[in-house]
């Protein structure tokens, strides 16, 4: 089994803050916490390291180099950290874990559950929860070594509670002894006697509305939709269901969305009526009127579109964040989000 271990400059013994700008480096064998992993039964073949600041400031470059080394070494498992409560180190661990995980390398990380690295890993790694400081090293290392050993050996891993990792936001199918009907009847009888059970709970954000906009007359407004509204012929191939992309189309000089030039390719509703007047999907005609009348300041120069059909919540949230990341620097203060 080939094991690679990722550490920041501090845990690799290269220095503290003064060394945080160090570029990625490759070291043979175990260093620092790697020795603890070896003591817990996980021999380390190669240690990779990068300064925390270097990673933060040159993320693409750092990742490319680290991933190229992983490509050469072809490890059976990658261990990142533990990074405890450290935000920069945790982010580097989580980002590397995500990219390695997506390339099929099993990854184990370790950090506090609220470390930004957990989100950065996007469910592509098994992350062992730790305390905020090095004091939790001793308890974390055997769990990390055990998980890494099993993943590297291709052995199955149990559920998060059994095997001591944070839920990755994934839902894995299993067969149980009773069919759904019998489970439902048992759950209902239990609930009626005061014992509420569930096989799944919500994982939704509850988003509170932002404060109201004081003066619409000076506000920049954008139009965003999940209605699958695209130029006729769907030139950029927006998937009609399970969309994994969103698109942006210019509105400069466009007063209304004519059915000759726009259509909906959404696979989740009967689009025939909407396609007679695409303004009913993206209310450009009405907003242009409001703009002329001075009731809103100005319409943003693009509209944003995707097809929201069986879109996983995580994907939808990512679309929202990405679109917002364009709108905010453009001075947009309000969005009309049309859903179907």
């Amino acid at each position: 089994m080939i094991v690679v271990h990722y550490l920041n400059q501090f845990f690799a013994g290269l220095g503290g803050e003064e060394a945080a700008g160090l570029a990625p480096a490759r070291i043979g064998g175990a260093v620092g916490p790697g020795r603890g992993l070896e003591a817990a039964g996980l021999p380390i073949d190669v240690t990779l390291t990068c300064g925390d600041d270097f990673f933060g400031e040159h993320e693409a470059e750092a990742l490319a180099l680290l991933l190229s080394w992983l490509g050469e070494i072809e490890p059976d498992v990658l261990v990142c950290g533990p990074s405890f409560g450290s935000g920069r180190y945790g982010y580097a661990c989580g980002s590397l874990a995500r990219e390695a995980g997506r390339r099929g390398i099993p990854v184990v990380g370790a950090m506090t559950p609220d470390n930004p690295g957990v989100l950065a890993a996007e469910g592509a790694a098994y992350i062992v929860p730790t305390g905020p400081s090095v004091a939790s090293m001793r308890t974390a290392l055997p769990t990390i070594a055990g998980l890494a050993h099993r993943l590297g050996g291709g052995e199955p891993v149990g559920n998060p509670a059994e095997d001591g990792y944070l839920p990755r936001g994934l839902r894995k199918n299993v067969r149980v002894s009773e069919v759904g009907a019998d489970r439902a009847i048992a759950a209902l009888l239990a609930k009626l006697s005061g014992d509420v059970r569930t096989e799944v709970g919500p994982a939704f954000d509850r988003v509170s509305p932002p404060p109201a906009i004081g003066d619409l007359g000076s506000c920049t407004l954008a139009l965003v939709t999940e209605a699958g509204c695209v130029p006729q012929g769907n030139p950029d191939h927006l998937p009609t269901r399970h969309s994994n992309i969103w698109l942006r189309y210019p509105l400069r000089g466009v007063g209304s969305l004519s059915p000759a030039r726009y259509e909906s390719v959404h696979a989740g509703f009967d689009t025939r009526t909407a396609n007679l007047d695409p303004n009913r999907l993206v209310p450009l005609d009405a907003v242009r009127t409001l703009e002329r009348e001075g009731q809103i300041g100005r319409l943003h120069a693009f509209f944003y579109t995707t097809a929201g059909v069986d879109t996983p919540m995580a994907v939808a949230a990512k679309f929202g964040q990405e679109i917002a990341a364009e709108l905010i620097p453009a001075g947009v203060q309000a969005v009309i989000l049309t859903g179907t």
Partner: protein
Amino acid sequence: MSVTGASHKYVRVVRLLTMRRDGGCEPLELASFDVAEVVEGSAGSWSEGSLTLCLRDLTEAAKEGLPALQDLDVRVVRPGDPVRIAHVLDAIIPDVKASAPEITFPGVLGRLALAGRGRTNRLTGIGVLSVCDWAAAGLASPQAFPDAFVDMAGPGRPMTAWGDRPELVVTCTPKPGVPVADVDRSIRMAALRVARDAARATINRPPSAIDSFDLAECVDAELPALAVILQVASEGPLLDTFLYGGPVGGIVPTILDHREVLDGALTSGAYDWAAVRNVTACYQQSALIRSLVAGHGESLRFAGIILALGYLDTPFDKQRSAMLSARLARKLGADGVICTTFSSGNSHTDTMLTVQACEALDIGTVAIVAETNGGLTDHVPEADSIISTGNHDELVDPWMPGEVIGTSDNAMAGEPVPLWAYLGACAQTGGLALTAVPA
């Protein structure tokens, strides 16, 4: 699925009670005829688990008087055959009304008559699968209907309820130029004919088991009364559910007798997402009905079935239907209801609103829903008890079938297949043992 010796006796007593109540009206007797092997021969017969079928006769009878079909083929596939069946529309359990075959699947195939009474002979351990490639026939865009597979071997075989038994595959080719609704009506009729005619061989034969589903009247009134809100959808041709042959689109929630559900009153013509589709067999062999009848008088009182629509178009329609379903549950005296779900996306909102409406009337609820990689599609705080029928986005390992039936394209051969493409894999009527856990 068949009742045990002990509960069989119990059912007999129950039947006497019901006959008295109904003034001699015939109760439903579901006579099962186990099928251990299927043999092709020159005439149909069933004996001791061996079913002989004349495929030529089945084919001729199936397509008679159906000009909307250019071609129709009936063949047998068996567990272990290296076959992937693509573009599967429906799965049907072969049933025939023993004393009046002409009222089998009443309203849609047979003459209109109430289902759920009299003797129905059922072949168990065999299914009928209807198959049509709408896109190849030019009747739908290639993306309109996602893949719908049944694998008879490989890693996908255990994903459906259909790979572990012989299947009669009815492959239909539409006649060009015929409207899609006419083609669909013909395909549904042809497949139901094959189901009925395959079961005909059992008439006057001794069954493997007889189940009855009448409910004892004198049961402990302290037991909790449970009802089912059975959600279906009916949005037009290729997306319809039929009650006695008529599409149910536009109905307000209504009460069904559980015996008529088991006996062919509800049939499917809805071909969206395969994994979360209620095929006709979901109604014929409803696990919920069977278990609620079995528990009636023991741990619960079975209060009834409410048929309700999902995929309603507007918030008003959704809230109204949820409220009317809850009101019927109250009328049935239900202390608790199980809310089933039909298909994915939009309809999960109908389920959640129904849960909310029932809980507002102090009726406890459990919802049955499938999950996606992103978790639940919708959720309300009142939905605190949910049964998951699995994550339909999970990938099933690649498999290279030796033969693909139902399409000329490669049907994802050799590729990982998302579970949503497997027929009934996550059906939200509770017939399978799949669920999802955190990972």
